[in-house]
């Protein structure tokens, strides 16, 4: 049987606020094009945007890998950066270490990680202080949800 690989990789530049969000727009366009349910596309767009913006706001550079698997969609955002010393604390809504110049732009509400958690079916974060962070999200589409029930 022919196996079609549905995966994409994008680069994300730290502090590049000019292009920030473009990667997530591409992810959204691909899913829309493939005919995924609009509500599912909305959830993926929010989760992907927040992960992308965390690289832009908090890290030096990173990559977003996104794959459509038989049962789900997987997004892995890896960065080289300061890492997260206390993930549980970082997950708390309202907690942010964003510097003043970034807050001025409206980032730093401390809501990004909670937005990811609310919209993804699974969220896994592995971080090494001084090296970087890996955020993995799994999202199950309505169809595969029913299928796996």
């Amino acid at each position, binding site marked *: 049987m022919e196996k079609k690989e549905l995966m994409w990789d994008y680069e994300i530049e730290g502090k590049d*606020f000019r292009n*920030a*969000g473009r990667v997530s727009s591409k992810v959204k366009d691909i899913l829309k094009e493939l005919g995924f349910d609009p509500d599912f596309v909305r959830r993926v767009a929010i989760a992907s945007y*927040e992960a992308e913006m965390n690289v832009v706001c908090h890290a030096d550079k990173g990559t977003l890998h996104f794959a459509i698997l038989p049962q789900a969609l997987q997004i892995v955002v890896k960065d080289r950066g300061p890492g997260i010393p206390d993930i549980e604390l970082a997950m708390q809504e309202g907690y942010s270490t964003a510097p003043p110049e970034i807050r001025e*732009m*409206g980032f730093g*509400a401390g809501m990004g990680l909670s*937005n990811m958690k609310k919209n993804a079916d699974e969220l896994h974060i592995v971080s090494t202080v001084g090296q970087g962070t890996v955020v993995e999200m799994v999202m199950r589409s309505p169809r595969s949800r029913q299928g796996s029930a």
Partner: protein
Amino acid sequence: MKLSEIIKELALTIQSAAGRLDREVTGGYASDLLSDVMAHSKEGDIWVTIQGHPNVVAIATLRDLAGIILANGRQPDAETVQRAEEEGVPILCTLLPTFDVVGRLHRLGIHGKD
């Protein structure tokens, strides 16, 4: 209500995507915190903010918002306008502060959650 009617009623100036004003506005959201808008705005909303940098266009695109009103005399950056043209996101400006923009939208029947 159509975006074009809101523009007329509030005397907004059009900064981008002049060809996209025919869209129906189904609700509204007001906030300057981007993750808050990401979490709580809805498709078809008009978004009232004072943020004029390019990332607002990304948010409007990702959330399928009908348009952005920049309140309080704020002007979009040149890059913001360029990106809004590319993505077809109407940016509209007014001297009115956020509070008054939202008040007028409510009077026109544009509501938030309810």
